């Protein structure tokens, strides 16, 4: 029941929103209540893990409503519900066409929850594709000046991602002797040859590489992140992109471990390139959202490195980084959105002195300093814990890519300091500084996210505790030496659930 509620609560609310009067404050409140309700359900599921659910849906297509929660998906469900709630809170009260906006936000949430809860690859693909429609509409209708281009690019890239994933999933069935019923348990026990696994892994890498994204499949990301309205950017950066990492963990490491081991050195190298490319581009950016977008791209390189290493520690690092980065990037987009709302621009050369206590945005900039420090991996915040696990876990397998990623982590501090120095310090132009300060309603989402980033920094179990048992069986190498353990029998779903 909990699983069904997690999935269908936003569906019901999204369908019910058009029945409310357009100007009613209850549109926003209802959307918020739905996302908070979903978060509460997620917490209930954490305390009392629900049984897996399997319902017949379209037997002609082999499609079943297989839902379940394990250590990999529960953190993402909680993250998705939380970021959705914060995104709704971060939406201006005077949002135009609110019923459609919030319905589409909840629609995106449904796709995300479907993907995380799915225990069936076809259902996963269906939910994965579902995200595309509302998100594209959100960008196309409420985005910035270049929203049309951003929406088309997002749609194109992610449609390719979805189709590639569909091809991979179908190929699982076609290539596997005797076929599979597309349940995760079945996929984990396939009888594919190594060469077939390589082909499938190539498709999986392309599909989730676009979603994560990974260089050179990242073409949609900077433009979409910079043009999307703030709440949508929070969702995209905070949760949707994390679906890429989750997919690689499930489909790459869990279902295709041999091929993953074979190619992991290349994947690690791509991760290192990703990290450096993202960080260097972030340094060169003159617009805050694009800077955050490239920063995110760089951090996805760390994820890829940790996935490639696939040691118990690095996989814990993956889950920690998914959560930490999800919170940090959503916080950064939230704060950049506040700067945009108040000052009317996010162009770095046009901003300075925002830390000014009387006429600047001291609260926003204070939190931004914390968020940038968290992104740069400063101790005491969630980013540090995640990066430490990633680097320490990956070092035994791929020392050189790890060093490159460490270097790029240093570059993170460069663009963080550069951004803050230019935007926060300096002289506030009195002629331009004619904006209101932020109110508590606007501050709440940023405060909640900041609090969680700090909690993650001083209580690392917050980031790894939920997934520790689930990631350990997926490890392909040991953490203390370069010992390949990929040949061990594949783990089963029940083991994962344990």
């Amino acid at each position, binding site marked *: 029941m909990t699983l069904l509620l997690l999935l269908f609560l936003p569906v019901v609310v999204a369908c019910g929103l058009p029945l409310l009067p357009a100007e009613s404050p209850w549109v926003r409140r209802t959307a918020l209540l739905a996302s908070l309700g979903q978060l509460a359900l997620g917490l209930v599921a954490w305390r009392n893990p629900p049984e897996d659910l399997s319902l017949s849906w379209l037997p002609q297509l082999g499609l079943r409503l297989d839902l379940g929660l394990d250590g990999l998906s529960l953190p993402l469900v909680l993250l998705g519900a939380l970021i959705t709630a914060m995104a709704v809170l971060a939406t201006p009260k005077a949002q135009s066409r609110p019923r459609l906006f919030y319905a589409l936000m909840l629609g995106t949430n449904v796709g995300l929850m479907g993907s995380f809860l799915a225990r069936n690859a076809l259902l996963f693909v269906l939910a994965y594709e579902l995200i595309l429609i509302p998100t594209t509409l959100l960008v196309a209708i409420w985005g910035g000046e270049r929203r049309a281009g951003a929406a088309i690019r997002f749609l194109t890239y992610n449609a390719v991602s979805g189709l590639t994933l569909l091809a991979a999933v179908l190929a699982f069935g076609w290539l596997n002797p005797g076929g599979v019923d597309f349940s995760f348990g079945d996929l984990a026990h396939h009888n594919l040859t190594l060469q077939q696994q390589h082909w499938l892994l190539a498709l999986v890498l392309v599909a989730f590489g676009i979603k994560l994204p990974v260089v050179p499949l990242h073409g949609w990301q900077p433009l979409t992140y910079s043009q999307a309205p703030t709440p949508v950017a929070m969702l995209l950066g905070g949760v949707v992109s994390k679906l890429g990492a989750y997919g690689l963990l499930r489909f790459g490491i869990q279902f295709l471990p041999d091929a993953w081991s074979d190619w992991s050195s290349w994947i690690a190298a791509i991760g290192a390139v990703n990290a450096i490319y993202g960080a260097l581009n972030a340094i060169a950016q003159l617009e805050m959202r694009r800077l955050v977008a490239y920063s995110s791209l760089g951090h996805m390189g760390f994820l890829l490195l940790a996935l490639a290493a696939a040691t118990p520690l690095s996989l814990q690092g993956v889950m920690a980084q998914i959560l930490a980065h999800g919170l940090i990037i959503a916080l950064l987009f939230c704060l950049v959105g506040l700067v945009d709302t108040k000052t009317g621009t996010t162009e770095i050369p046009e901003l300075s*002195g925002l*830390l*000014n*206590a*009387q*006429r600047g945005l001291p609260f926003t900039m204070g939190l931004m300093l914390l968020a940038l420090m968290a992104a740069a991996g400063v101790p005491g915040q969630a980013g540090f814990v995640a990066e430490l696990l990633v680097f320490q876990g990956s070092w035994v397998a791929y020392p050189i890519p790890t060093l490159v990623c460490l270097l790029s982590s240093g570059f993170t501090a460069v663009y963080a300091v550069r951004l803050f120095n230019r935007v926060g*310090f*300096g*002289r*506030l132009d*009195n*002629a331009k500084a*004619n904006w*209101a*300060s932020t109110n508590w309603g606007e501050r709440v989402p940023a405060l909640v996210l900041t609090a969680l980033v700090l909690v993650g920094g001083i209580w690392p179990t917050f980031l790894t505790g939920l997934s520790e048992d689930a990631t350990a069986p997926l490890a392909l190498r040991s953490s203390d030496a370069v010992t390949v353990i990929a040949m061990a029998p594949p783990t089963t779903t029940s083991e994962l659930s344990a």
Partner: protein
Amino acid sequence: MSTTTAPERTKAPLIPPSTHRYAEVIHRLEAGGSMLPDTPENLKQIIGIYKAYAVPMDFYWRDLLYIAERVFLNPLPAFKYFISNEYLDRPNSYAGDQSPLRIWRGTEKAHPELLAFMEWGETRRMPKLLHHLWHDRVNMEFAEACMQAMFWHQGMGGRFNDYLESDAYKANADRAIKAYFKGNPLMLGLYKLFPDMFLEQVRQLSTYANLGLFWEVMAPVFFEMSDIYDEGGFKGVPDAMDFLVNGIFAVAGRPIYHHVFIGGECFEIIPKSEGFTWLYEAALPYVEAVFYRTSPFRGTKSYNAQAGQVPGNQADFHYGILYADVYPVGSAGIPPTLLMQDMLHFLPPYLKEIYKQHRRGEEDELIQLGITFQRSMYNVTSAVIQALRCALLYPLDDTDPKHLQANRAFFEAQMDRFLRPEARLPDIQTQDYR
């Protein structure tokens, strides 16, 4: 029944219009106006801030004289801001019944709002030391920063600074130093070893006295301006400026001196007989040092002197209130921080009402009052410029074109100082600058 009259013929100007970038301001000065445009709101703002400025100023001048005359060379002057009752009750020399030269209508005692603030502060009634440690007090640091600016810049006209280097001054200071440290072999030994160190301290204390005597005049002036405005007396900004000009001339010749009281004896370090006068030895150096020059403010903005970000010549310094960025992140000018905080306690209600209506209302009152203060100081500077023109050049209604041209050249030379991009003169021409 209506009658048609011929339009009055306007008098042709005797000299052609100025082509200066601030021609409009120059023409306004030539017509007897101020650099600050004459609008009802400007008048309200500047009078309101004069009142808010006068209350802490009433403390500044008393404490400056207390430090110069009583604290003197105390090696650990931890309590120099804890003014004695004698100085708190010291009658103002230019206001009140007991004043030797009553020019202004106020009382000779410290202002009641100041006394109430000293007792209660922003917080609650508590011992003076706790108010001090909680920083719930008047910021004497502002007054000392102004004094330091005057002391450091020097060379701004007058004979005061030359006198500080004279043998007569050194002899007077020597007597006072020896008397102050009488029976203290350690300090006397130090004085023997490093005579210039103590002498320099005494010179600084003479500047304390100089500024204290300057503000002793200004505090009752500003109080009276506030009273006149409340009575509906000022009709425009030029009226307020004229009041200041008249005030300047009324006290121009009052003495600037430095007396020190040690063991009941008065040591005249700068005797009144030297003939140093208020206008030339205090007012003009003060305006030059504090309104125009001061020094790069030690705020959050760093200046790289080696990269030429600070002028090599002290006379080119431009960090005073007339150029200041009032945001308290530093960048320029002494007043933006501490004085603004002091004035905030004493704003008249009508000024608070104006601030509520603009920008962030009460939230950024501090900034709005800083900009008001900037406007008001442009008006004070206008008064000084007009007073100088009056003293050195020709009347504004002179009919000799050569004289008018001389006045024009004087005004243009004054306006040249505001051609720097940092100058706020263009900003204060509009009411939007808040």
